[in-house]
């Protein structure tokens, strides 16, 4: 006899195991939720070189990941208390709206409709990007205006498709869009010359170019056809949580401007013998009560910077010239260095 006669039992038992996986609430004040869970649920990309990727040990690393760590360090005191939720282009907003994550740091472009219509709040810009084109040098094109009749590879699920359509329509030239879902496959398609040029955020293009066998065989065209300010975002309606997310980002940027680094932040935060700069003192909590205003303790910014370093250090670690991606700071240099990166003052 075959023992399948009483399947009900084994299944009831199985059901009993999945139920404990159910987890708690989503609606109360976000800060309280995070503290109660003792874990920050942070939405990240499913795999984008430099921004969010896994190392050989299976840990998430990258530019966006470090923001999650900084936020967790500021709120919970431990940069390791992050639950990374990797999200695709289509479920990132529903996940945030439904409260599955508390913050989304997934190279997301800040646009009007997302900010206003989708019930979300962008807390700042951590990467100024723009959409550009890369093409083989052998094609001999110097401007995107010469692309009449070309096939263009696009990574879907982003604003790039819209920008591209707008650009070609306003310039009245025709093209064949080749939409591809992931960056890896778009890259493979471009390399096989399925398309003449590949369009994506300029940061992605530079990163992609660096990974070709002969980077010099490919040129990035001068046109940047869109503004892509990428930044973290939170749900609409919880201003306290939005403030925390915003000012953790600002602290990382200000730290670079003020010369606060991962190595010296603890020394500078000393009440005696620390920094003389009043802004540093306010930010690092040795003077005033900015932490308390946010609903955090005085050392919040110290912990964030201690965990991941200042903006410049994060950039250098994951995207900068010493990495395989080799991106220049460009627009993302501080405003004092010719870029447009700028944090409101800690006052």
């Amino acid at each position, binding site marked *: 006899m075959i023992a399948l006669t009483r399947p009900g039992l084994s299944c009831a038992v199985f059901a009993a195991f999945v139920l404990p996986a159910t987890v708690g609430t989503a609606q109360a004040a976000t800060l309280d939720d995070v503290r109660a869970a003792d874990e920050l649920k942070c939405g990240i990309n499913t795999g984008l070189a430099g921004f969010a990727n896994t190392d050989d040990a299976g840990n998430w690393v990258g530019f966006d990941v470090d923001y999650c760590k900084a936020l967790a360090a500021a709120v919970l005191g431990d940069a390791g208390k992050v639950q990374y939720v990797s999200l695709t282009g289509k479920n990132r907003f529903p996940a945030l709206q439904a409260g599955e994550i508390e913050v989304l740091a997934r190279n997301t472009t800040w646009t009007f409709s997302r900010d206003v219509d989708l*019930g979300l709040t962008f807390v700042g810009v951590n990467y100024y990007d723009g959409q550009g084109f890369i093409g083989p040098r052998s094609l001999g094109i110097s401007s995107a205006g010469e692309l009449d*009749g070309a096939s263009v590879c696009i990574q879907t699920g*982003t604003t790039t498709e*819209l920008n591209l359509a707008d650009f070609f*329509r306003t310039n009245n030239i025709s093209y*064949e*869009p080749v939409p591809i879902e992931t960056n890896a496959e778009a890259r493979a398609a471009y390399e096989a010359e399925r398309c003449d040029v590949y369009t994506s955020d300029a940061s992605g293009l530079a990163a992609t170019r660096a990974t070709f066998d002969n980077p010099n065989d490919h040129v990035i065209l001068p046109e940047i056809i869109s503004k892509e300010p990428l930044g973290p975002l939170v*749900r609409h309606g919880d201003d306290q949580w939005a403030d925390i997310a915003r000012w953790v980002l600002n602290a990382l940027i200000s730290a670079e401007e003020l010369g606060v680094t991962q190595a010296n932040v603890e020394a500078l935060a000393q009440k005696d013998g620390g920094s003389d700069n009043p802004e540093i003192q306010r930010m690092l909590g040795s003077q005033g009560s900015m932490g308390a205003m946010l609903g955090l303790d005085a050392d919040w910014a110290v912990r964030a910077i201690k965990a991941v370093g200042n903006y410049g250090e994060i950039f250098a670690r994951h995207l900068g010239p010493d990495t395989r991606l080799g991106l220049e700071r460009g627009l993302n240099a501080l405003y004092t260095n010719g870029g447009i990166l700028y944090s409101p003052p800690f006052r």
Partner: protein
Amino acid sequence: MAAPPRTRIQQISYLWTDERLRGIAFQLLVTTSLALFFAFIIWNTATNLKHAGLASGYGFLQDAASFDINQRLIDYDSTSSYGRAFLVGGLNTVLVAVLGIAAATFIGFLVGLMRLSSNFLVSRIAAIYVELTRNIPLLLQIIFWWVIILALPRVRDSISVGDVLFLNNRGVRMPQPIFEDAFQFVLALIVAGGIGTFFLARWARKRHELTGRTFPVGWSSIGLIFGLPGLSMLFLGLPISLEIPLQGKFNFEGGFNVTPELIALWLALSLYTGAFISEVVRSGILAVDKGQIEAARAVGLPPGLRTRKIILPQALRVIIPPLTNQYLNLTKNSSLAVVIGYQDIVSIGETVLNQSGQALEVISIYMAFYLTLSLLTSLLMNWYNKRTALVRER
């Protein structure tokens, strides 16, 4: 004899043992709890949407889509509406499904017969093909074919067939026929030829049943459908011209292009489903009584006729229900197109969802679309099945 009067409690317990009443009570219970369940879901959804400040409804379908689609069976550009984008995507799904069903049926019958071949090598190769394709996730197979097609020659090194058809890793570029007004007359003749063939076939079948004499329906229908219109076309001075693709700066210009994504998806779907169909065909043919084949041989039918008139008609009756299932599977599996960027309804819907944030609406459109397709396929195949089914004696 009158029954002894019952007490009230007995009456109620009798009610409970009445099978009919118990059935009604049970159905009422199920219906009510289901209604409550749905009410619960709808109420939750409404409050959640309101809480998140999201709008719902299908009004967004009229907004401009503002993205482009590379394969359009109907007019579409980036100023068209979301609704039209869905229509383009839906047609693309139907296109790949119809092409896939045709090819999968062909492959399935071919491989099914190959597996029954007496040639050891042929039946082995067929078996290897079936096992390989059936046991690897379709998603991987779609990617595999896409990668293979990307490995074809690049545009500048296109394989040219007679300088009119070009094969490269951007697809197959072929001449596009351009019809002049006079072509309508030819078109009318073709339609008339088709109708004529239909009646001719009916008459021939009747005559065959009555007298046993056969009529070459195949040849005469070719004459009717192609011959006459062809002749008229010569008289009208060929009211049709071909737009031959020419090498442009980046791509071939003019002509008609079949994208690599369509080819890869089509190959993967038809090879995958073809393997399943071959198993269906094989078991269908094996199910035909050996005596039938022997009897056919005994009355001296040649092998071709034996397969056509004796084996296949009987095998088809076994084959068609599972074949319908495979057709439905193929249609549904075409939704995996999204991984290689073939712009079917799921891929387009994803872009729309991404821009408009109307998740509930987009997913409901997906479901309605696939349910309709499934229903239509089922109805069509049921109709065909009824027509070919044996009229049962008992």
